[in-house]
């Protein structure tokens, strides 16, 4: 083992873990203040149960030797996952690094269902999803599964993370349905600086996500790192230019979105392409997502925070362009279309479609299962009040006006009682 590699992977794991709180702010700033905590909690809570089930079972299903479609129980309960070397770092560290990917992936999905999905149902959903959908898909590409055998290139998770989360988001948005105000009233971001903060921290964390996927402090990590710096820069620049051309005004929400889209696009390609290609990839990658965002808003699909347009369209674009720009001269790996290997593009498309199909189906099944036990969406009047109060019993910002202390003897003390009465059904999760 090599202390240089261990050190970098420790940092990378911390950076990817930070992305989940960052996502909470990126998303939380874009909703109305009455749902700010609920939206942030949908990201933060993933750090709990998802990490636990990943360690107990998910990792094993994804990375333990198994079939082409799924791992095995060999590593269940972390048995056999110790400090012995896996490559140049301890196996246990590899498990943790991969765990941070599982956490952020489920958190990404929440963007499609904010402001109306009941928190209890969401909790059940993410736990089942990480085991039933994320783990197998990770196995396909990174665990020696059939997409790995097919030669699909996905450096840090264009398909595994982004297309996967976006497919789930699409299905979830359709199954759970529109917010009652959707397309009737303007629902504006309550705190754009939080969205910018989230974007800034996401970029910071994404260096661990992409360059950490080299699993060591190697020149390839440096390549992935610089590509993760240049591609979003190019996306941001392109986005800004389109904004200027279309309306003369560069929006901040747009800039934050552009950064995330650029990061998504470069994710599958990071360690496979050269820096000049990264600039091209980032610039090209801005276009499909930019217009997907605008078109989506005209449809009936209330993918509230545009997971599909940003992560789905962006992830697919990136995966396919990886097949175009992949360059053996830089990566020592396979070449892409420009390197005279057009077949790679087809493999990339195949991997995207496979992930999309499975994730969509799996998500649908899981949501229907959860719905048998817990109502998925909040009652209409709960949407009016906002989910912070109904599902969390808190407000994001309060001056405390008119708040009357309840003594422990009062029946209303503790959370349930009044809540339960007031919302006999559908209200409180």
């Amino acid at each position, binding site marked *: 083992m090599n202390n240089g590699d261990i050190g970098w992977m420790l940092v990378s794991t911390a950076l990817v873990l930070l992305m989940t709180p960052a996502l909470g702010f990126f998303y939380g700033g874009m909703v109305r203040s009455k749902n700010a905590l609920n939206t942030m909690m949908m990201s933060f809570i993933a750090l709990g149960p998802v990490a636990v089930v990943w360690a107990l079972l998910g990792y094993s299903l994804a990375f333990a030797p198994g079939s082409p479609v799924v791992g095995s129980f060999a590593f269940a309960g972390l048995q056999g996952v110790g400090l012995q070397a896996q490559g140049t770092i301890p196996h246990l560290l590899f498990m943790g690094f991969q765990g941070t990917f599982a956490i952020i992936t489920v958190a990404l999905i929440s963007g499609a269902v904010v402001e109306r999905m009941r928190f209890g149902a969401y909790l059940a959903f993410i736990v089942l999803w990480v085991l039933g959908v994320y783990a197998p898909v990770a196995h396909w590409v990174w665990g020696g599964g059939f997409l790995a055998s097919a030669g699909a290139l996905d450096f840090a998770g264009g398909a595994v993370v982004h297309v996967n989360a976006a497919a789930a988001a699409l299905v979830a948005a359709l199954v759970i349905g529109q917010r009652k105000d959707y397309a*009737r009233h303007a629902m504006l971001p309550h705190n754009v600086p939080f969205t910018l903060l989230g974007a800034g921290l996401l970029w910071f964390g994404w260096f661990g996500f992409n360059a950490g996927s080299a699993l060591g402090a190697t020149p390839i990590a440096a390549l992935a790192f610089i590509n993760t710096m240049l591609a979003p820069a190019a996306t941001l620049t392109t986005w800004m230019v389109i904004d200027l051309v279309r309306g003369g005004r560069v929006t901040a929400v747009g800039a934050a979105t552009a950064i995330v889209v650029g990061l998504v696009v470069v994710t599958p390609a990071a360690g496979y392409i050269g820096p000049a290609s990264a600039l091209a990839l980032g610039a090209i990658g801005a276009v499909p997502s930019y217009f997907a965002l605008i078109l989506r808003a005209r449809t009936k699909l209330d993918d509230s925070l545009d997971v599909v347009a940003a992560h789905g369209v962006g992830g697919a674009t990136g995966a396919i362009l990886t097949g175009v720009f992949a360059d053996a001269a830089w990566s020592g790996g396979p070449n892409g279309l420009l390197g005279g290997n057009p077949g790679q593009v087809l493999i990339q498309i195949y991997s995207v479609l496979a992930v999309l199909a499975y994730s969509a189906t799996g998500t649908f099944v899981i949501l229907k299962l959860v719905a048998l036990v817990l109502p998925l969406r909040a009652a209409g009047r709960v949407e*009016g009040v906002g989910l912070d109060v109904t599902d969390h019993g808190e407000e994001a910002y309060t001056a405390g006006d008119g708040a*009357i202390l*309840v003594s422990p003897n009062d029946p209303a003390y503790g959370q349930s009682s009044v809540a339960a009465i*007031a919302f006999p059904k559908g209200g409180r999760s």
Partner: protein
Amino acid sequence: MKLIVAIVRPEQLSEVLGALFHAEVRGLTISRVQGHGGEIEQVENYRGTTVKMALSEKVRIEIAVSNHFVQPTVDVIIAAARTGDVGDGKIMVLPIETIYRIRTGEQDQDAVTPVPAVAAAV
């Protein structure tokens, strides 16, 4: 001239504004307020502290109108702001002695007939 003061639910604000504009009411002023009435009191928890929220979010709308315009305006608001649940709010009508338009110094009737700004004027 009368001053119509309406307290409505924030969720209904868009409906109310839409209805008012539709009814040719072109001038009004709103502010965010909090009200107490017959509403259920939300219970909230912050660590060991449990509180009952005696106030719920409302929006206060102020509209100065000439007398013959009072009833229609009130009716429009009632129609648009009502949900039927406790907490829909109130409408008060107060007497105004004089009203001025700051820009021109015009008084009363004239003061409240808005003049759309020409774009370049903003």
